[in-house]
């Protein structure tokens, strides 16, 4: 990696992705015979549906990115990651519906809650390591899940039915302003990704990678590893909260299933499919998982999740580095292969 390359070349991949995703709705619109103006007015039917699917993918990708920062970069396996997402989603819903706060205050509140949660986790960070941390985080998250599901707070959270009827601010309404929502989610995803890339390349991020590789050695070099873990935790928590907030604004019902272990496992699955520790793997994985899931549900029906589970097991057993990781490993081979193919075609050695 060259250090003196500029912003554009460094983030070429993600910027191309941004451009393609921005043009995509209009292309789809042209294919179904509607002009760009109809897309801007949120009138296209199929493109509108695809935008909705893409928004879900973006939300999952942001969430998976935050999980990858903790698990893939810093090496902290947390089974309570869904809590960040769920707290933000519920807080957004409750603040808009019950407290009726203005939107900017809601955003501030959610960010504050994210930092507070990260600090709560960091209370136990210096004490428990490895698998015990996984258990403790699972414990925290299940307490939150239990509270959300319990009938004691049914007026606020809606218990096991979920939180319904959140009044979404008009300028962000996903039904009327679908395209705007789509662009905002996309830009947030791209911004998060670029920031994460920058973070991992920064000295702080390097220490986080060192903690993953060998915490004892990082400590011996004089780094206070707990501080770096807390930094990673706060960043991850804030990112997951942004995803949770988008989820609360986009979905008509905030179901309590976003707080349980299964939702963390979804993030784990995305990261695993894409490639652990390779940030773009989170985006690739989110696309792959959501689209596979969508197609399976369309054509197989109820037993789709068995197949998704089988895919997961196959990835764990046979593709441990995920799509991106395997591609990176094969990069040299692929280049050599292309060269050979070109040589065969052109007839030159």
């Amino acid at each position, binding site marked *: 990696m060259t250090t003196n390359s500029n912003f554009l070349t460094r983030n070429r991949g993600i910027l191309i992705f941004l451009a393609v995703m921005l043009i995509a709705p209009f292309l789809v619109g042209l294919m179904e015979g509607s002009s760009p103006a109809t897309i801007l007015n949120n009138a296209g039917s199929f493109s509108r549906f695809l935008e909705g699917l893409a928004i879900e993918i973006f939300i999952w990708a942001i969430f998976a990115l935050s999980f990858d920062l903790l698990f893939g970069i810093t090496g902290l396996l947390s089974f309570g990651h869904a809590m960040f997402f769920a707290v933000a989603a519920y807080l957004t819903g409750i603040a808009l519906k019950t407290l009726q706060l203005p939107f900017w205050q809601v955003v501030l509140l959610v960010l504050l809650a994210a930092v507070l949660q990260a600090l709560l986790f960091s209370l136990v960070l210096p004490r428990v390591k490895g698998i015990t941390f996984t258990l403790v985080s699972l414990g925290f998250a299940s307490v939150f899940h239990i509270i959300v599901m319990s009938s004691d707070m049914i007026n606020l959270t809606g218990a096991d039915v979920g939180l319904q009827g959140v009044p979404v601010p008009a300028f962000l309404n996903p039904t009327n302003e679908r395209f705007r929502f789509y662009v905002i989610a996309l830009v947030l995803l791209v911004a998060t990704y670029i920031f994460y890339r920058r973070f991992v390349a920064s000295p702080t991020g390097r220490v986080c990678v060192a903690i993953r590789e060998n915490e004892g050695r990082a400590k011996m070099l004089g780094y206070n590893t707990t501080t770096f873990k807390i930094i990673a935790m706060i960043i991850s928590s804030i990112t997951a909260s942004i995803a949770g907030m988008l989820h609360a604004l986009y979905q008509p019902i905030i179901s309590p299933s976003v707080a349980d272990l299964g939702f963390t*496992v979804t993030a784990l699955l995305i990261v695993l499919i894409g490639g652990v520790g390779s940030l773009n793997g989170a985006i690739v994985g989110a696309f792959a998982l959501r689209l596979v899931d969508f197609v399976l549900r369309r054509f197989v029906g109820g037993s789709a999740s068995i197949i998704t*589970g089988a895919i997961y097991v196959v990835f764990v057993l046979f593709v441990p580095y995920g799509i991106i990781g395997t591609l990176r490993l094969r990069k040299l081979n692929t280049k050599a292969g292309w060269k050979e193919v070109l040589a065969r075609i052109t007839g030159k050695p």
Partner: protein
Amino acid sequence: MKTTIQKNSKSIIVLIVIAAFLFVAARGMSGKDVVITILRGFSVGSVTFLVAAGFSLIFGLLDVLNLAQGTSYMIGAYVGWTVYVRPDTFVDVLTPLLLILAGFSLSALWKRLASFVHLETKPKKIVAWLLIVVGLVLLGLLLARYPISSWDLNNYAESPISYSYMADQGLRIIPPEATFTEISPELAILGIFATSSLAAFGIALLNREDNQQNNADWRKYVAPAILFIFGILVALFNTQITNWMFTLSTNWLFLIAVAASILSGIGLGALMETTLIRPLYSRPIYQLMLTLGLGTIGVQIVQAVWGRPEFVWPKPELFTGTGGACPATNLTDLIENQCSTIMLLGGRVRVYDEIFIPIVGIIVLILVWTLLKRSRIGMIIRAGVQDRQMVEALGINVRRVFTLVFALGVGLAAFGGALAAPSAGLTSTMGEKLLLSALIALAIGGLTSFPGAALGSLLVGLIQQFMIKYGQIGIPLPFTDTVFKPSPALVPASTVLLMVIILLILPNGLLGKKE
């Protein structure tokens, strides 16, 4: 002596604080409430212990965090229910199952045959995979046409719920037998054996030739032969066995059901370890993710086969008597009338839920404890927990011990499921809930410590039950007149809080190994 106390001073203080807390909690209730609450705590603790013990054995020896343990618990319950309520289904499933096992367990023969095949590596691989795929596809086609009398999820009158209800009412109607319509029985039976043999041969071809010294030992063929003969016998006398099982008393049927669920757990564990976990010993975090995935798949499969709605497993006759002198006041009354409840210190206690389950839990505790302390295999396990590499260096086949321990652990969980289901009912979420309790119990007791698993499970059970009881009578808050009533949904939260507090003070749990 003094040093051990000093070393464990924190654990002792925590234990004393918990004991004092429980004592204060018990003082706040009436005598009969205390008895019932403590017995229920023991009951929940016993079931949790069965799952947690397997978990801790597996984690201690293999370093595998088996998150599929909750699912094993659930599968044990569902398998037991099937044997108990629908013996005809069980008998029907037995034949293909035994034949498949016979085909695959002839591995010694297949390996020997495979060593005669001399091919280049690549064609051999292709042939092997071709054999596996063809074998499995044909097997699947045959199984789809094999008649198995079963329930119908879409028809309420024939759903598991209705069958449970009928069995509970003592209506034991033998459902119509499924008959061979699409294929002849000979073709089905021999075909299943042949196709599974084909797949097994393919797997044997895939293995590298490390079996040069593989001498033909006749003992290796005994097990497959027995399985094959049993499979054929069950197929021949299918109707008779089914009728006989329907005439059995429910007590015997219950025993058979529990045995079947333990065996299914053991088989499942052995299968999981040898096929899926073994390739991942060098990548611990992936094992964890694998078991997590397997757990989710297991839940999906259970939902697809048995359906989502909750249903009950009726208790055996021994615990359902109501006539005459019930609720019993003394032991002879209890035994004579087979009462469902008994009066104990003024409280009415259910015999199965609050007496039988804790007793079984204690028996299992003692059995596993003696197995660990007194037998050779237990010695190897304990040594392996302490230092695995040393045991390997001493020339002990650790691989086989690994498989054994994994099978034992999953078998214990399945046993727990079969034991708990008659009192708690069967849902597809039961595994998840129990896994959480078991994890909390282990974190409290110490992840790799077997007595820790017992202590942690007991504490979790007791605290949960005390919270539930206080949810009914309410806790008077100090300095105010309000009474706080925690809802039952909040109960697990209390144990989680206990776990977090204990882990903050003692990162390795109460009885865990100090680093």
